[in-house]
């Protein structure tokens, strides 16, 4: 279990103080995967550097299974680091070492006997599905295989916490899923506590049990995936269940009130729309929708337009009585990214396709 409490990091740039982390608090129970999502400049990299003690936090604490990391003395820093296994975006393997040599690297540092190292390396490579690649150099491996070696290396010191910094951002979609499934599988088998730092919502959707949204050095929203996704007004829900940006349909229904509806869990099993139509004897038109399974639950996010002159307040009330979030929005057009955690560079959202 890892607990981060009110972590602050202030950098000095000349006379100016730059607050990179502004009181980050989060907690990840053993055996679960927590996603930290945010755009460039949100403080993700600083958080990683503080968690691995590459940078000392200005204040606040990082605690792993009761051991306080942020207050260890410099002489104990190396032992403390060995409790955290780290997976990097570009694997960061040594080109001069074979796959086996790379995995053996952390073991060499503490002078593990040769035969013990060999056995451990073979076991780890098997664990990540790279049996038979012992003697391959990183240049002979694919991106996904390199990342598998990186994961095996991170696990070599039997860490309690696995810290993954954009582990799939350099991989293609199919390989991304393979690596994420591997991380999930290892989390269960080894009872790891995993933190995945990413800017891809897909990563969060696929493996994370809980998630924090980091923006400007603060955790803006956080919670279990199923909970945050069920909040109609949360940024994370909008990012997890994005509605495709749409133009008003010409010649469609007359301009009636537009509702946004979010159903989850049990309520997702109900035929909501048709029951509304029957109950109020009205027609409705689906403008945009997104249906996903997150953390094993069904979620749906819809934007529907009612016919003119419908008493929409009673429709909203009817839906809410059935445990479905609903609200009236003033336009049928799905707006583009809200300004609050919009990327600083305009091309970014389009490039990643996430965090709408």
């Amino acid at each position: 279990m890892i607990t981060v409490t009110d972590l602050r990091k202030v950098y000095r740039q000349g006379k100016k103080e730059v607050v990179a982390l502004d009181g980050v608090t989060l907690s990840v129970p053993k055996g679960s995967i927590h996603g930290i999502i945010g755009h460039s400049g949100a403080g993700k990299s600083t958080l990683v550097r503080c968690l691995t003690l590459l940078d000392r936090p200005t204040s606040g604490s990082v605690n792993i299974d009761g051991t306080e990391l942020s207050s260890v003395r410099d002489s104990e820093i190396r032992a403390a680091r060995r409790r955290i296994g780290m997976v990097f975006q570009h694997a960061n393997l040594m080109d001069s070492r074979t796959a086996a040599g790379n995995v053996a690297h952390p073991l060499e540092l503490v002078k593990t006997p040769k035969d013990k190292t060999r056995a451990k390396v073979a076991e780890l490579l098997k664990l990540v599905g790279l049996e038979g690649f012992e003697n391959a150099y990183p240049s002979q491996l694919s991106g996904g295989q390199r990342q598998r070696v990186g994961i095996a290396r991170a696990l070599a010191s039997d860490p309690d916490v696995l810290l993954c910094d954009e582990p799939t951002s350099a991989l293609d979609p199919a390989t991304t899923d393979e690596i994420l499934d591997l991380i999930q599988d290892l989390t269960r088998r080894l009872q790891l506590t995993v933190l995945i730092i990413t800017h891809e919502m897909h990563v969060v959707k696929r493996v994370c049990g809980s998630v924090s949204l980091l923006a400007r050095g603060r955790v803006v929203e956080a919670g279990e995936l199923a909970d945050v996704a069920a909040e109609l007004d949360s940024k994370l829900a909008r990012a997890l269940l994005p509605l495709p940006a749409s133009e008003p349909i010409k010649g469609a229904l007359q301009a009636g009130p537009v509702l946004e509806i979010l159903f989850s869990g049990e309520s997702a099993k109900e035929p909501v729309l048709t029951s509304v139509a029957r109950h109020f004897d009205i027609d409705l038109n689906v403008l945009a929708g997104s249906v996903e399974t997150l953390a094993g639950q069904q979620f749906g996010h819809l934007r529907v337009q009612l016919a003119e002159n419908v008493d929409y307040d009673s429709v909203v009330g009817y839906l809410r009585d059935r445990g479905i979030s609903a609200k009236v929005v003033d336009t049928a057009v799905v707006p583009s990214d809200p300004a609050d955690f919009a990327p600083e560079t305009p091309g970014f959202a389009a490039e990643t396709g996430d965090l709408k």
Partner: protein
Amino acid sequence: MNEIFSNPVLAKALPEAIVETLQMVGISAFFTVLVGLPLGVFLHATAPGGLRPMPVVNRIVSDIVVNITRSIPFAILMVALIPLARLLVGTSLGPVAASVSLSIGTIPFFARLVEACLRDVHHGKIDAAQVMGSTRMQVINKVMLPESLPALVAAATTTVVTLVGYSAMAGLVGGGGLGKLAYNYGFQRFDVTVMIVTIVLIIVLVQVIQLTGEWISRSLDHR
């Protein structure tokens, strides 16, 4: 062809000159790597943002020792270091004495090349090693040096080729070797055959060093 074999100077002095040149290059290459490599590591590690930043010491070593030594023309440095050679090896003549000034002339050069090689090691690899719990020495020995080894071999090759050139110059001030042969007989006595043969030999020596170095560097490179 016949002229080469019948030339009395070549028959008598060439074998000795070749040995002397190889001695000078060999001895000074050994000491250049022995001292230049740690010096380069030191320059890199103590630089701002390095493994152990020491701004003041780094400035002193980098600016004063390395840059000043490198800005003195080698021909002058060699003459200036004659007393030092006498102090260290007891004589100012011969290839061993010349190796003193040759080494001192090329150590800063090689150290700069080493520094550049280490700077090229991707920072992510050093982060990875530190997160694993490496000591600074382990980062240097297990990451920086092995990862830059192909580049270091290439740098050493360049340095040894430079040494061949310098050793010819050292021949003029008492070092002996092919440089002395070319100057004393080829230039001052207008013996064209001696001149051509020594030049060809130096070219061959440089080629052999360069090709061997490249081959070693390539065979070490797993990127």
